[in-house]
């Protein structure tokens, strides 16, 4: 590693990796497409499903990105904040369904479920920040991360103790069943609702961060915390607000996730949490638009890639490996482009 011209072992490994990926993707895609295993409609279905899933990821990713922007830390427990909303929402939905309210007034009913879920996630997020993260504001960077891991374990297992281990199923609504026909595409109603709701939430968030005083304060803190404090911004309160917003979004995402997947349980936060973080990094951590785009991209990638790439190689049960694809995206992005698609590399 003496002279710049000569390659090191590390460089060789990285280049081999790059080549392997490009070749793999190309070959797999070509094999699948030329074999014509799936129809256009099937691909469309996968893509729409990916978008729906991706919008959920995007909502969770926003929480990660906002917190990273102001605190430069990865809130590892954010996935469990998402889970808490989904579970709390379940109890409300279940109660409303039993009472017959949900079938009679589905829109209002689901809105209530959404609100409760979002609020309960928000509370967990605020408490989390106050108890676990605030005392460690000045600690070396590994310390808050380890704390976050501990908090994640704690929250997930507390829920397991409180609500029980069993998987719970959200009540299915008549009004959500079936498909819509938009521009000739057949879309499951559940997916359509999720996408619409998510977009509304994302737009609201964008407006909030760009137009309101608190949003400006958040952006100021993410640029320079100390100067922001000197300018009269209440740093503690703004950080709490940031966590609160992230929590709200995550809780809502929990309900939306449940609408599509129906089943919720105490450990459901782990994998979506990591995937949402992947989405945040993919878009460029700290970048709100990036989180949204990253989420959508990841959702689509995760849905389409197993079939596009892996079945091309004749891999059995490619769907099993969709998580592998998602995690691979995480690893690859962090290795090759840690500042994300919308970020710029730091010059050295």
């Amino acid at each position, binding site marked *: 590693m003496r002279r710049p011209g000569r390659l090191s072992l590390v460089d060789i490994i990285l280049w081999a990796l790059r080549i392997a990926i490009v070749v793999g993707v190309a070959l797999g895609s070509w094999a699948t497409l030329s074999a014509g295993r799936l129809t256009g409609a099937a691909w469309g279905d996968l893509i729409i499903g990916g978008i729906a899933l991706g919008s959920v990821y995007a909502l969770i990713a926003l929480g990660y990105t906002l917190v990273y922007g102001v605190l430069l830390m990865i809130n590892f427990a954010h996935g469990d904040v998402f889970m808490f909303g989904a579970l709390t929402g379940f109890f409300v939905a279940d109660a409303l369904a039993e009472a017959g309210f949900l079938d009679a007034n589905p829109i209002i009913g689901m809105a209530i479920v959404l609100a409760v879920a979002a609020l309960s996630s928000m509370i967990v997020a605020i408490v989390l920040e106050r108890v676990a993260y605030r005392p*460690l504001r000045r600690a070396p960077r590994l310390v808050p991360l380890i704390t976050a891991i501990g908090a994640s374990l704690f*929250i997930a297992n507390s829920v397991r103790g*409180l609500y029980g281990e069993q998987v719970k199923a959200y009540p299915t609504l008549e009004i959500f069943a079936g498909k819509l026909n938009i521009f000739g595409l057949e879309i499951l109603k559940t997916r359509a609702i999720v996408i619409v709701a998510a977009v509304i939430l994302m737009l609201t968030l964008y407006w909030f961060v760009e137009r309101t005083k608190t949003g400006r304060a958040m952006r100021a803190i993410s640029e320079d915390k100390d100067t922001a404090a000197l300018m009269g911004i209440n740093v503690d309160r703004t950080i709490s607000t940031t966590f609160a917003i992230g929590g709200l979004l995550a809780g809502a995402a929990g309900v939306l996730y449940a609408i599509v997947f129906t089943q919720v349980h105490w450990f459901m936060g782990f994998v979506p949490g990591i995937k949402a973080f992947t989405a945040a990094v993919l878009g460029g951590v700290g970048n709100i638009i990036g989180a949204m785009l990253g989420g959508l991209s990841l959702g689509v990638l995760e849905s389409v890639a197993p079939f596009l790439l892996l079945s091309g190689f004749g891999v059995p049960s490619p769907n099993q490996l969709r998580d*592998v694809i998602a995690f*691979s995206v995480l*690893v690859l992005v962090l290795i090759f482009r840690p500042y994300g698609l919308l970020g710029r590399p730091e010059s050295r």
Partner: protein
Amino acid sequence: MAGSGSIWRRALIVGLIAGVVVLYLTTVGIVLAFAERSFLTGVTSMGRLILAIPPLAAGFVVGSRSGSVGARLAAGLLAGAVSGAILALSLLFASAVDIRGVLIRVSAPLIAFVAWDQEAVTGATINLALAAGLGLAGAGLRVLPPRFRVPLMAAVIGVVIMSLLERFLRPRLTELDFTDVARFLYQGGGLTIPAAVLTFVVVAIGAVAWSPVKAGARRSLAGADPGQRSTIRAVLIVLAIATVLYLPEVVGSFFSQVLVSVGLYVLLGLGLNIVVGYAGLLDLGYVAFFAVGSYLTALLTSPLSSLGFGWPFWLALPVVILGAAITGLLIGAPVLRLRGDYLAIVTLGFGEIARLLFLSDALKPWLGGTQGILGIPDLFGVPRIEVPILGVISGPELTYYPLVLFCILAIFVAHRLKYSRTGRAWNAMREDEDVAEATGISTINYKLLAFAMGAAVGCLGGAVFATHLESVFPGTFNILVSITVLSIVILGGMGSIPGVVLGSLALIGLPELLREFAEFKLLVYGGVLVLMMILRPEGLLPDRARQLELHEAEEETGPDSGPPLTAASAGTPIGHGESP
């Protein structure tokens, strides 16, 4: 700001927190799990003890303020009362409203237990009064001068520990034909009153005698010359080794199994200690090395695997270690340039990818998919061996002794590295990577080295594990293993070798004694991580330097020391703190 008003407010807040804690312990299910376990035979159960601790602690905390004794006691009373009130109100609520649909633990048995098998109102009142009394007692404890308080607390803790040991001591004493002793100590699952009194007295006397004895020992040690000192050290080491060797004999066959688990995690902990503790690289995917070691061993030694070589363990071992080092390099190389948080997440990603691949149908022909690989032969290839001094070794001992050997080896290597040029380089790199690099340390090489060593140890652990279970299943190798090992290292102290041993004993060994806790093991791990980071980030047995490193850092402004190596977000300032 100090005034009579603030002590009451503090009492209220502390009491509130204690009340919430009590509520939490109840609704999460811990209280009920321990409700059946007897603490003192015929007197009370562990569940009651658990309910008693928060108000007691609340009183203790509140009683620390300076002020008149009366005020402090009263404040303790108040804190306890508040805590009790919360429980009481919740009890009334739960008996009136059936919330079992949501909080599944709040069942009739639990309510009955909390209410002392009385009517709700009576039970609530009892709890309120008791909690207030406990708060008072806690404050009283604080008010006592240390020379009374310390022996008292030590004695009580001693009694609790003695009671907890019932699970282990009673059957063991019976096995060793000390049935009378066992019956004296334990009845009906709990400690007998006479035994409790005895323990109390013994520990109290011990606590009082501890200081003078320790001072005396230190004095004579200081007076000894170097020759005598190294003799003493040698004797201590021999004693330690002898203890370790005879441990399986002492604890019996059941707990020998526990010893194997503890030993395995000690080994894993030592490996992760090099990566996290020495080099400062937070590896959340450490389980991947463990898995690779297990699978490689399985593939090479099991005749039923896809390779079917059927090699003996000791022949496969060098190949496994080599494979480990290569895996370490492959995982380490791409992630070298990443900063702390990102490194952690990437390694987590690797760990998960590994698990999913081991599990997948795609790789089933080679790795066995969900069914894993069976038929791994024992470490020595035979189920029993005759060994001098120790006699016949069989069962878990067959794994235990090689494990001890490997642990000692790992400790030796880690110790040697720590106090060498390599160890210094790691230290420097961990403290200030950019300056270390500029001082001539190739951080890339040293990071790779740390990964490779950690991988080697992890794979070694995996190899032993595979022969112990005689099979490997992909489900075993999940992130919880990584987190457990991390918790052990954190609890004991990052970079501390004795810490790893303590951590493993505490987090792996202790749950075996507290079987009721098994369900809540992960909860405890999570809580431990958070508490350790907030209260004592350097761990329980740190070396001096680490303690200062972690506490001093909190006083400095800003977490960054130098230009970050990757972009955090657009607009991260570059070149911190130095005028360009």
